[in-house]
């Protein structure tokens, strides 16, 4: 067939199709360059640094596995991992049900709900550092809300006692991010076909039944998306904890990211800090992949019978 085809066509076909796919590939280039420069290059640099000794000021000297050995044998690492996972788990447990409920509530189109949606969104506009400073001042054991208003219940050593401090970190994180996840759920709920609810109503299903049999299963992928963001995002909590507790009291809230900062920038041990950074990346990748698995292969229909 090709041999019979007239010459102009033969010339045309490869250029046009080549041009089209070339155009698509070309569009990925800016993103790819950004990712290379700001994602891959630093990552390789950190990996290289983890096999070196550097105080951040002087020369970088190769040091083999020294940094890895010192970090892996340090009891600070399991502790930092534990704190990281504790904050991750607690903030997921606290945020998911609340965001889901608020999201479902805000999905309605009534005027007052739209107003509330705008109000709920405000915490997300504040920077973590500003939030941390505010909460730190409010929870100050001597000049804070508790002693100021004379409310005994609020007058605790919120940030000076290990367990309370972890709780406060989880609370402030949730306070900041619940609006964001509510927004995701709001969008998710609005995408559920109305027909499903109408059918359920005809079948005599109540509100609770509708929520558990329609809304929740339909939100499966939304839940996975939101959870991935929460879980992977919580690995990088730094600014908030740093300002709120600086990892304290003692090392009660020293999560991985903070541990990395303290080793690298305070103690001048860039090698071990890079080891922690590599561990952070691996944990993050592992969690993201695991959560994708949870979501299944993504080819089963969500709208069966709809």
């Amino acid at each position, binding site marked *: 067939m090709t041999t019979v085809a007239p010459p102009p066509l033969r010339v045309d076909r490869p250029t046009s199709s080549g041009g089209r796919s070339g155009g698509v590939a070309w569009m990925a280039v800016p993103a790819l360059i950004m990712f290379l*420069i*700001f994602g891959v290059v630093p990552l390789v640099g950190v990996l290289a640094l983890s096999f070196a000794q550097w*105080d*951040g*000021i*002087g*020369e970088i000297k190769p040091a083999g596995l020294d940094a890895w050995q010192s970090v892996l044998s340090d009891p600070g690492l399991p502790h930092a991992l534990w704190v990281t996972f504790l904050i991750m788990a607690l903030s997921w447990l606290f945020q998911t049900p609340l965001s889901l409920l608020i999201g479902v509530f805000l999905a309605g189109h009534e005027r007052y709900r739209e107003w509330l949606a705008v109000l709920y969104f405000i915490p997300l506009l504040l920077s973590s550092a500003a939030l941390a400073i505010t909460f*730190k001042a409010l*929870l*100050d*054991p*001597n*000049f804070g809300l508790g002693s100021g208003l004379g409310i005994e219940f609020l007058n605790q*050593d*919120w*940030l*000076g006692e*290990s367990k309370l*401090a972890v709780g406060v970190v989880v609370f402030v994180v949730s306070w900041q991010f619940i609006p964001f996840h509510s927004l995701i759920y709001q969008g998710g709920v609005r995408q559920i076909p109305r027909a499903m609810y109408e059918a359920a109503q005809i079948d005599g299903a109540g509100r609770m039944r509708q929520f558990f049999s329609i809304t929740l299963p339909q939100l499966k992928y939304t839940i996975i998306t939101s959870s991935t963001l929460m879980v992977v995002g919580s690995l990088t909590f*730094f*600014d908030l904890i*740093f300002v709120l*507790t*600086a990892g*304290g*009291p*003692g*090392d*009660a809230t020293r999560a991985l990211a903070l541990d990395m*900062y*303290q*080793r690298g*920038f*305070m*103690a*001048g*041990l860039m090698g071990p800090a890079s080891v922690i950074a590599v561990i952070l990346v691996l944990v993050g990748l592992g969690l993201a992949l695991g959560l994708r698995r949870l979501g299944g292969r993504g080819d089963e229909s969500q709208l069966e019978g709809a």
Partner: protein
Amino acid sequence: MELSRRNFLNLAAGAGAASALAACGSSGPGTSSGGGSGSATYWYLTGQPGEGIRKNTVDRFNKANPDSKITGTAYQNDAYKTKIKTAIGAGQAPTVIWGWGGGGLKSYVEAGQVEDLTDWFGQNAAIKDRLFPSSFGPATINGKIYAMPAETVAPIVLFYNKEVFEKNGAQPPQSWGDIMNLVTLFNGKGIAPFSLGGQSRWTNMMWMEFLFDRIGGPELFQGVFEGKPNAWSAPGAKEALTELRKLIDANGFVKGFSSITADSNADQALLYRGKAAMMLHGTWTYGSMANDGGKFVKDGKLGWMNFPGVDGGKGDPTNTVGNPGQYYSISSKATAEQKETAKKFFKDAVLSTEEVKEWVDSGAVPVVNGTEATLGASKDAEFLNFVYGIASKAKTFGQSWDQALSPTAAEALLDNIAKFFQKSIGPDQFIANMNGTIGK
């Protein structure tokens, strides 16, 4: 995180702007251009009254030298400590590096990042002779001077609220035993015995410094400083830690101290508002308490004394610890013109008569010889003479531990101190942990 974002932006801007900068060809590494070719940069600390005085000195210099200006930028204490290290490591250091001397300066020297000023001081003997000889200790690394001692001498002293003492019929402590009795007394009255900004960690360290000195003598920490094996388990260390633990157990420190930061001056507020009776702190807090505390200092309600002795202890009760001065270094990465400007700044502006007067007015003692007359004429004469007396009569003036040690050892020390105050480790564990960091 501010630092990384800054680096990120520098990097991003660097890629595109490299050619543009090269075309201008005006500035060396890490200097923002502005003013003449010899314009230098200078980073220092925020917090009044020091910040204003530093700024005035820069302004006076710039007025007198319109061709070679200095651009000053102020940073908060704890943030600055990290920022300056990162900047030096990235070749972005300011021309004039504000610091504490000691272990931090040593790490810059070893990396070849600061200028050797030995010859300069040799040529300008008048400048050297004008300053406290004791202030040159932390500026000297391996027999060479790498920084100009500046600003004020700041020993750590025991402050107390006279009003609270009078109301409760208490007397200033003359011994460690008195301190423990006062703790019981004030706790019984619902007043915190000691204010402490424990989240900053070096604040807790001041307690350990004094107890180690009073009980084991200055040779105890000297052994650590020299990197002697197991120096932390030398005689006196365990006793000092045990006494400190007793104080923590007896609720000697204000409730919630481990979440209070010194940067916010909340620890000082506790003292001048009468919520705490005493506070162990640097003499620099006198100025800020006079600034922020309303009429507290002016009305003579602030009391002060050197840390009392411990019965049976080896240390001399005249000993003190703290900052023997502040230290200004010159970045070796600066251009020749910038270095000249910086040296001129050191010579003409730093600790000029005007600056000395401003420091004295703020209630601090500059590291300059022969200021007795100025100090005596000041409205804070009583306090200033006390500080001058401590600084000049101390048998040993120990440098703050976290400044004397290398950054790595200092971080390990602060970390273990925080855990010790949180009672998550006891004296034995502390000693074992710290012995493991010797030589690092």
